[in-house]
């Protein structure tokens, strides 16, 4: 195109129009802002929250919790500040309870087995008619030869389950992998108490603990941890002294002033050597009748067999451990324990899990009589009976003899129906018991599981009727151990199940079945809530305790609002008379620990299994928060590790992350090596909790990791006189596999260094008799 004057003017005009249009019709600057808010939108909360009091069910101690609920969804779990057991504190386990509620692997509706038993193949069915009809038919045909296996149950659910089992002519047994039967028996024999005692750590000045990992997993760790905090740092008091005598360096041992790594199974002998020193040097508390406690001449002679000179070498104590002569150490320890009153001796865990576990625990608890710490401030405190007559206040569980019998009954066809709730005995019993095989091969057995999650035993079920999880259901608890006075905890449904889930409350299913089978006379309640309400009315009628109410309705509301009822005026017995000649009798029946299996060859080690800090025995294995919660000492997550002494690891030629085979006479497992200077050279520690074959992906073996179940290799040695499994009574060999994985733990290494005389040792020396 020829550039003429006319064309130039035309293009110039078009350009001007275009420029005007662009600017004129465009959006003006400043009219379209995009704003950075000051606060993160994720942090802005809309709506109102409600906090409901209830109970945690992620461990047997059943702590009081409050749950934050927003718009029908539970968001946060914290400790109930009113509840006397934990007083607002919680363990990490409690907080992970939310994950059970929203877990992707929850069983959404009833299921029926569609493949071979144990294949894990199920098809969904409806509650009505299929699920309930199948259950009713099975109960009618097989109820009289049924066994119901549950978690340890206390309170009204325990009453209901027992009555139901009785009504249909069956049997109920509580299951706990690391049962407390030996501990209970020791408490009964030493203190004549049926319920577990409380320990007044808060007011104690000296704690002597044998094997009890009471700050992590043993009995009621949150309560004990709170008391321990006061014991160490409480206002207006001196810092308490704490010795841990334990074959493994546990989290509790790590908190102690002195950890004494005694040879496994010799804790009772050490306790009696301390008793011998106290008696022979007359260090007992004022008013303690030593003659009555030790008994006649035979008792004195029995006790004298436990002089420190005799016990120290047998118990494997060396001068490296004690920072001097072990005999002097034991003597000084006995003197300090006796003089730093109030002092308290605690025993449990692996100390009671040997063939001589009952003897050991009796010897340990008998020490409390010598130092005058029975029923007093800063010592052992006893709990009263339940305020409810006939309602079980103690969660008694079966022992290994019971499970051997049940397994044989299943194998022989005598047991025709198995009901499971909150228990996974296949995972939690030694593999050599062959419970898995017995259930798989028993053709005439009908297995019903009420578990909301699949596990090793539920995978064997013919019918799964999923229960509600505890945040969706009613419940109660008679705390065990209590705080020294009567206490009832209440659990209420804080949310409804999500719309895509269709669980039914286990106790309501039992009550429905009882009605349909014509057993209303034994189980007269319309539903579980009405049963609990009846319990509430009974408490109201007592007219005492923490709730003042004008009517039963008001009392019920207050009971739910506070998360329980307690009466600080209804205490346990303050005075407990020691059985005559107690120490002498215990000394006379002392025995060495029995380690069956592979023997004491130079290539074998003591195996000390221990409850995982968050997974416990595997009960919480399906909760990813708890899988990923680092172990307090090793920081390992998601795996089964084996704690090996550095020198032992060097001798075996393994390093961190190597996979080793741990072999007993029964079987072998694989575990990832975690070398630590804190493991005794002849002891290996392996946590429980992993190695499930069925269930949630979070709980079962995962690619690229090693997660084995240490229960698979345990010898079936029994604790004498209790029939419980001596789960710390196994010796094993360790061998390289040549394989290695990355161990999932926090970065960095905390290595032990020589720091010379510890402050604790300094104090012991200072307060020994010659200096005191």
């Amino acid at each position, binding site marked *: 195109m020829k550039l003429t004057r006319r064309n130039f003017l035309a293009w110039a005009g078009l350009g001007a129009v275009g420029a005007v*249009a662009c600017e004129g019709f465009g959006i003006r600057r400043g009219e*379209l802002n995009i*704003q*950075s*808010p*000051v*606060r993160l939108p994720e942090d802005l909360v809309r709506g109102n929250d409600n906090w409901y009091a209830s109970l945690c069910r992620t461990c047997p101690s059943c702590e009081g919790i409050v749950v934050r609920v927003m718009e029908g969804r539970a968001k946060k779990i914290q400790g109930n500040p009113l509840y006397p057991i934990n007083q607002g504190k919680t363990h990490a386990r409690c907080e992970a309870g939310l994950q059970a509620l929203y877990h992707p692997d929850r069983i959404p509706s009833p299921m029926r087995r569609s493949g071979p038993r144990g294949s894990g193949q199920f098809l969904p069915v409806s509650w009505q008619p299929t699920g309930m009809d199948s259950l009713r038919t099975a109960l009618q045909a097989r109820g009289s030869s049924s066994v119901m296996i549950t978690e340890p149950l206390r309170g009204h659910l325990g009453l209901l389950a027992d009555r139901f089992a009785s009504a249909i002519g069956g049997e109920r047994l509580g299951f706990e992998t690391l049962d407390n039967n030996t501990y209970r028996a020791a408490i009964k024999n030493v203190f004549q108490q049926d319920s577990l005692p409380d320990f007044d750590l808060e007011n104690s000045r000296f704690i002597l603990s044998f094997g009890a990992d009471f700050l992590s997993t043993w009995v009621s760790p949150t309560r004990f941890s709170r008391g321990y905090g006061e014991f160490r740092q409480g206002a207006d008091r001196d810092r308490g002294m704490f010795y841990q005598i334990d074959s493994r360096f546990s989290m509790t041992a790590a908190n102690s002033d002195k950890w004494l790594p005694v040879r496994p199974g010799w804790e009772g002998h050490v306790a009696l050597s301390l008793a011998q020193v106290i008696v022979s040097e007359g260090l007992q508390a004022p008013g303690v009748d030593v003659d009555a406690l030790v008994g006649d001449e035979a008792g004195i002679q029995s006790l004298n067999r436990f002089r420190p000179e005799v016990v120290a070498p047998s118990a494997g104590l060396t001068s490296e451990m004690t920072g001097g002569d072990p005999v002097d150490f034991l003597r000084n320890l006995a003197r300090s324990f006796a003089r730093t009153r109030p002092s308290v001796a605690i025993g449990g865990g692996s100390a009671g899990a040997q063939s001589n576990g009952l003897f050991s625990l009796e010897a340990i608890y008998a020490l409390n009589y010598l130092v005058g710490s029975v029923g007093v401030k800063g010592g052992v405190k006893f709990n009263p009976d339940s305020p409810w007559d006939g309602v079980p206040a103690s969660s008694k569980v079966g022992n290994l003899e019971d499970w051997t019998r049940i397994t044989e009954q299943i194998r022989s066809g005598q047991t025709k129906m198995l009901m499971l709730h909150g228990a996974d005995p296949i995972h939690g019993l030694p593999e050599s018991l062959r419970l898995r095989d017995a259930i798989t091969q028993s053709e005439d057995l009908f297995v019903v599981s009420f578990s909301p999650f699949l596990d090793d035993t539920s995978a064997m079920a013919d019918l799964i009727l999923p229960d509600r999880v505890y945040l969706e259901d009613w419940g109660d608890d008679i705390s065990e151990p209590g705080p020294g006075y009567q206490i009832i905890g209440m659990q209420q449904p804080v949310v409804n199940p999500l719309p895509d889930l269709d669980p039914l409350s286990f106790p309501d299913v039992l009550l429905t079945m009882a009605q349909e089978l014509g057993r209303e006379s034994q189980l007269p309640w319309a539903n579980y809530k009405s049963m609990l309400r009846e319990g509430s009315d009974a408490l109201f009628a007592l007219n005492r305790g923490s709730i003042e109410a004008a009517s039963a309705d008001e009392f019920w509301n207050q009971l739910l609002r506070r998360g329980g009822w307690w009466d600080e005026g209804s205490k346990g017995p303050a005075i407990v008379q020691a059985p005559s000649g107690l120490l002498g009798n215990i000394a006379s029946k002392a025995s060495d620990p029995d380690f069956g299996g592979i023997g004491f060859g130079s290539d074998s080690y003591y195996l000390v299994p221990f409850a995982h800090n968050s997974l416990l025995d595997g009960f919480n294995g399906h909760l990813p928060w708890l899988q990923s919660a680092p172990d307090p000492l090793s920081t390992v997550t998601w795996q089964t590790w084996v704690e090996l002494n550095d020198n032992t690891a060097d001798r075996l030629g393994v390093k961190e992350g190597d996979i080793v085979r741990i072999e007993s006479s029964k079987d072998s497992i694989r575990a990832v090596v975690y070398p630590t200077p804190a493991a005794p050279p002849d002891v290996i520690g392996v946590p429980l909790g992993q190695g499930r074959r069925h269930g949630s992906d979070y709980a079962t073996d995962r690619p690229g990791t090693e997660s084995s179940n240490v229960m698979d290799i345990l010898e079936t040695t029994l604790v004498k006189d209790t029939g419980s499994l001596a789960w710390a009574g196994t010796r094993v060999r360790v061998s390289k596999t040549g394989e290695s994985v990355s161990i999932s733990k926090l970065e960095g290494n905390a290595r032990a260094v020589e720091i010379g005389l510890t402050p604790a040792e300094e104090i012991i020396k200072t307060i020994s008799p010659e200096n005191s």
Partner: protein
Amino acid sequence: MMPSGKMLPLMVAGGIVTVILGFVVVVLLISWFSNPPFGLGNAPAQPVAFPHSVHVADNNIQCEFCHRNVTKGAAATVPAVEQCLFCHQEIDGATTSAQTEIEKVRTAFETDQPINWERVHRLPDHVRFIHEAHIRYFTDETIPVKYGINGEEITQSPDVAQTCTICHGDVGTKTVVQPKAGQSLKMGTCLDCHRNNSVSTDCTICHK
């Protein structure tokens, strides 16, 4: 001269039609020019001179760290001031000018004042654009071949940051953000890209 009686209704009707058409034309023009045509968009002045180059190219911060919603929903979103303080509570800036700009952010947080940025990329109100769907498509490794905004063939699935550059250009290396040079983000661009990738061009896919 007054119009005759016969002309008056015609003139009134013509006036009304002219006004309506004029309104329609103005609306269309505003709509057209509100998104700069032919890739002629420039960089507006911003209240804080935020250099993407320092954050992305130099310090490897992912796009979605600040634009938190970009892989989750429709809008990419700009970060909250609180998020800037995640780092700039400690990081003061290497130059005096950087320190001045960072101080503006800190002041905004302390005085509880939001920062009003000038929008660089925008689409008309009647258009619905979902960032998440587009990032999901381009990062999908199961789709062997995809085509970019100008028809370029993409055989290796890009990551999120690379996907952003398809429409926005290499923002991560720029100290000042402006539309991708020579790139119009108009309806034709959208349609071409949808056709190249065999994605529906139904009106309701994009128009509200």
